[in-house]
């Protein structure tokens, strides 16, 4: 599903952020990406979401070389990748329903289909009945679950999460991780960046560890 082949990333003036990173995630695999701050976790995720392009090497998503992708193809690549953020990135002036519906509206789904899928997605994260609420009145855990509902509503084959539990207490974090495992069970590939070592250790999944831009454990 996802293949990094000798990927290096260099920012002008900052040197190599990633150096010769190679790994392969199978379809339906769930993996954690860990490492100290500045180890290159976020950069690695950005390469998959085509927010950045690597300086050397190859990133293959679903067989497609992301470095070769033309700008106008990028939106369609992103529709295959559900993104989850530490700060949730919800639109505060839109209801929960509208936030979750955004990827579907963008992809051009009809009204009925949008309604059906948003409800299904909110049901999955346990927020059915909160469609009309605004993000500001929800707790942090609930907001993150709205973010997750938005990431999966389009049924993408791949989910990327950047410190999804960074702002949550341990109990909520475990809940979120459990949710991710459910997605894995239906065949979604997940890559979760986190430095919460104790939480990761509890779960029996593959761990990719970055140290100063190099993959030191896989």
């Amino acid at each position, binding site marked *: 599903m996802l293949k990094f082949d000798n990927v290096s990333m260099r920012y002008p003036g900052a040197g190599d952020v990633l150096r010769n990173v190679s790994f392969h995630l199978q379809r339906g695999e769930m993996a954690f990406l860990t490492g100290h701050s500045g180890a290159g976790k976020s950069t690695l995720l950005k390469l998959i*979401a085509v927010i950045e392009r690597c300086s050397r090497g190859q990133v293959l998503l679903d067989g497609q070389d992301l470095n070769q992708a033309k700008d106008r193809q990028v939106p*369609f690549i992103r*529709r295959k990748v559900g993104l989850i953020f530490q700060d949730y990135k*919800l639109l505060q002036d839109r209801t929960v329903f509208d936030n979750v519906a955004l990827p579907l509206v963008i992809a*051009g*789904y009809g009204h009925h289909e949008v309604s059906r899928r948003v409800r299904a997605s909110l049901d999955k994260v346990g927020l059915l009945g909160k469609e009309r609420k605004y993000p500001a009145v929800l707790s942090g855990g609930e907001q993150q679950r709205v973010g997750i509902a938005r990431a999966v509503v389009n049924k993408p084959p791949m989910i990327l999460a950047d410190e999804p539990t960074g702002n949550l207490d341990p109990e909520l974090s475990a809940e979120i991780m459990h949710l991710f495992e459910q997605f894995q069970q239906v065949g979604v590939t997940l890559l979760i960046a986190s430095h919460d070592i104790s939480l990761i250790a509890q779960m029996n999944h593959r761990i990719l560890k970055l140290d100063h831009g190099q993959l030191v454990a896989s």
Partner: protein
Amino acid sequence: MMKHVNKKPGKQEPRWQTKISGGNFVDKFHAYRNLHAHALFSSLGRLVASRFSSAMTIVVLAIAISLASGFYILVANLQQLAGNLEASNQISLFLKDDISEARANKFAGIIRQNPDIQDVKLITKEQALAEFQSYSGFGEAVKALEKNPLPIVIQVLPKNSFENEQALEVLLDDFKRSAEVDFAQMDMQWVKRLQSIMEVARRGVILLSLLLGAGVLFITANTIRLELHNRRDEVVIAKLVGATNGFIHRPFLYSGFWIGFFSGVAAWFIVTIIMLILKQPIEKLSGLYDDAFHVLFFGFTETLALLFISSVLGVVGSWIVLHFQLRQLKPE
């Protein structure tokens, strides 16, 4: 071999699924139409929500547009006036004193055959005298004359298409060389002046419109730039969840459209109100000149053109900003 052929489309299927999935064609068409309708009305809603700043922008744009279109209407009115003065292209040929009326008639006939001539009118000595007596106020004095001093006059009216002043000059020189003609004259100076004034005005309208049009473009662009800045988060999130540039552009283009459209409407009212204020004194003036002139307002086509051009300027202005600014708006 067969296996290989079958495998290829199967492999591409998931990509297509994510690209165009979701409901049947009718449902998708409705969704697309709804997207446009939503962008159209939500951008209008945002304009209303920020009433004060939208109103200021629209007033500034309306003033710019009304300057250009008002000047246009002014020139259109002047052209109407110039149209009524076509008779001043008329050439008067004063024939030599020894030319008989019969020979004058023959000469007039020859002129009439010239395809460039619209009308020829012969004024005999007697007619000229009678006219002079009744209009000049020297009636009694003229009666005292022993002999009619007035020559036979042939009034020549060149065709309307005869706007080129050089051609008029050639025609006039031709007449001057004729044996029958003592003196040929045309109020050439007046024609020249009018033509050059109209030319200056016409070019002025074009230049002013270009300048003010550019102003409208950049004011709209700046307004949209501010809106883009205010809605930065929304744009970034939409990009992250796979919005195409078209999807992101759409509401801003509609905002530009509304700004341009409303500015056009406001400009129409500004110019029309100004013309209404000017109407009364102009009609009064016109009355003194045999009602030769009526105030022209925006016609139907001109109104449509005004609204169309201002809307297009609004859309183009926002497009410019989106084109150059959205590239810099990178998600983090």
